């Protein structure tokens, strides 16, 4: 075989690549502030990506598309819910677009990879998720968690559920087998100890489509509660399968870390019977910021927002406010502005713990309504409890040294 072709190949490749590779740093206006939303547009969370995009966009638009007089350039990258793809795309955006502010992704597992990138590259990183590690074992100065700590959240769910159903002592857990599932399972069991709850659990990968085996096992356990500690479509599939097998609605379903609204929209009223959802954000939240955001969102998209868009909105909004507060968009300054800040935002009162970068805020427990109790088409649930207690004790938090900037 002839090999002189290689020279030509190299030449054409070099030219072609140089053409295609936008010399972004050269042409990018120095005044522009680039914000990256790394969202899942393919993969198990493909339906959530567009929702997160909406939320972040809404916050930026509400801010007039500029901050500190600088226009905001909002870019997105597909996390694919894969650690390898997300980290690669995040690095690429940092290199070619000069990104210093990153929000996302959705999967806790991928977030743990992204936070390593943010630590190494010293970019500001905001995530909303159920893994305790972002503000725990893997904490560092540049990363923050917007969601309630899973410790607090699981306590809110169980404490308030047991108040209303004190005899429900047999819980079967479906746990997605990754960082998110592990954290929420750990604290579900911990919170349930006080009530003498007997737990049995099954772990399955995120994106499992075949839940029949697990539902059969759950049924054989004769539970009072089927507790879903899974995410994405797994929640919908589990709920439907539980109904298919006749397990629900006899047995209550508690979706402890749920999306809320967007899931409700996918389930018909029959499958929402006896469904309880713990969530970081429900559009019915009684705070001025939440109410306004719901109004704006509903006007644009004809449906109220669930956890995902509210989270993206909340994180972006707090970041922009922090930039204004610090009068600077440098990551180190945003970090200092957020730390120890007590303010009112989407969830109501928020306080950013400077030692762990965990947000202290309220978590919601919802109970779905029967169709005849719904006052309008989106009146899915009553808010049964809103609480930010108990706080995770410092002694069990694994973030011992959040490090320097």
């Amino acid at each position, binding site marked *: 075989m002839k090999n002189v072709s290689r020279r*030509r190949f*190299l030449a054409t490749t070099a030219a072609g690549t140089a053409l295609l590779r936008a010399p972004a740093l050269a042409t990018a206006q120095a005044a522009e502030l680039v914000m990256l939303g790394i969202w899942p547009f393919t993969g198990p969370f493909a339906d959530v990506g567009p929702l997160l995009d909406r939320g972040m966009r809404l916050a930026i638009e509400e801010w007039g598309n500029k901050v500190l007089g600088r226009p905001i350039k909002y870019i997105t990258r597909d996390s694919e819910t894969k650690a390898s793809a997300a980290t690669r795309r995040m690095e690429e955006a940092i290199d070619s677009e000069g990104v210093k502010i990153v929000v996302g992704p959705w999967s806790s597992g991928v977030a743990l990879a992204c936070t390593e990138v943010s630590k190494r590259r010293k970019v500001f990183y905001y995530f909303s998720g159920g893994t305790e590690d972002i503000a725990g074992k893997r904490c560092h100065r540049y990363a923050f968690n917007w969601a309630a700590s899973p410790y607090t959240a699981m306590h809110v769910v169980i404490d308030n559920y047991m108040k209303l159903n004190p005899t429900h002592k047999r819980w079967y857990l479906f746990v997605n*087998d990754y960082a998110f599932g592990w954290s929420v399972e750990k604290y579900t069991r911990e919170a349930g100890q006080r009530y003498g709850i007997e737990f049995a659990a099954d772990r399955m990968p995120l994106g499992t489509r075949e839940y029949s085996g697990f539902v059969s096992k759950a049924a054989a356990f004769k539970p009072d509660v089927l507790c879903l500690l899974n995410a994405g479509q797994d929640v919908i599939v589990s709920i439907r399968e539980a109904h298919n097998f006749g397990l629900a609605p006899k047995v209550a379903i508690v979706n402890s870390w749920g999306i809320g609204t967007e899931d409700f929209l996918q389930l018909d009223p029959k499958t929402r019977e006896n469904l309880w959802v713990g969530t970081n954000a429900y559009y019915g939240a009684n705070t001025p910021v939440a109410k306004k955001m719901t109004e704006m969102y509903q006007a644009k998209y004809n449906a109220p927002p669930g956890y995902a868009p509210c989270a993206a909105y909340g994180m972006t909004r707090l970041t922009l406010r922090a930039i204004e507060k610090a009068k600077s968009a440098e990551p180190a300054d945003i970090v200092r502005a957020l730390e120890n800040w007590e303010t009112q935002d989407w969830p109501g009162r928020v306080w950013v713990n400077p030692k762990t970068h965990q947000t202290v805020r309220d978590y919601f427990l919802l109970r779905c309504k029967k169709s005849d109790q719904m006052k309008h088409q989106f009146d899915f649930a009553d808010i049964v409890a809103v609480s930010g207690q108990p706080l995770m004790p410092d002694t069990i938090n694994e973030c011992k040294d959040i490090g320097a900037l």
Partner: protein
Amino acid sequence: MLEGRRGAVVRVALLLAAIVVLPLVVRPVVASEIWIFSIAAMALNLIFGYTGMLSFGQATFFGLAAYTAGLLMIHWQAPLLVVLAAGTLVGALAAALIGYVCIQRVGVYFIMLTFGFNQMFYFIAYKWTSLTGGDDGLPGIPRPPLALGPLGIRLDTSVRYYVFVAAVFLLAFYAMKRVVDSPLGVIFQSIRENPGRAAAVGYDVKRYKWLAFTIAGGFTGLAGVLYSMMFGIVPLESISWIISGDIVFMVLIGGIGNLYGPLLGAAAFKWLSETVSIVWERWPLILGVALVLVVLFLRGGLVEAFARLREATAGRGAEA
């Protein structure tokens, strides 16, 4: 001009030039990946292009070595050279064991066995979360400095790591060239062309296939180790058959049976996935189309494409 001994010098010079130019043309991270996957693609080329065995499970060795390297670095702070050696060894050992079973069969069975083993290890890695981190991957992988006697060369920036990867690649390339140019290489090729004849001549075909498979496993393991240090994390994909498929692509598209083919394939594949994926999310469609076209019309891959182009233009030049 590229024939014969002088041709060999020119070829090597061009390769060195490519190594120097590449990080200026694409991001250093992508350039590193190109050489890493070139090593893995060369390995598959050895067993497929030269020995005629299509393995759809090279990620087994890539991933096993990556995880081994990662665990050694995290738990024992193993030095760089130890990690490289360990990964290569793990790749070769795993290939020796798995290969022994697989080469008992030929054709579809062989492919399915390599695929089956890949799946098995993938599922084990997926479920053994305490060891591998499961779907989240194994995080916290450092980049130990390169210790050469008293010197400790840090590799923490993308450019520095690129230089290291390129150096390792050159060594691997040289080793592969030695294998391919040796009598062993000739035996491998004779097995591909006509296993019956090779056996008739007196070669223990199964043993040579096993040897090729094991050598390829070692090279693939080396690539896996380099990959583990790229992003500070060993993702689950490292052992997934998606990577097995990617490596098959690279070899096909580059041109099988040619030493430089896998390099072209790796470059084309990584370049495509980097640049096109940002512009169009459905870029695997292009990959699929490219594969179909290569398989139907251009089984020699890019190497053949450019050879034909050269012949066509040379022909026209001669007429003019």
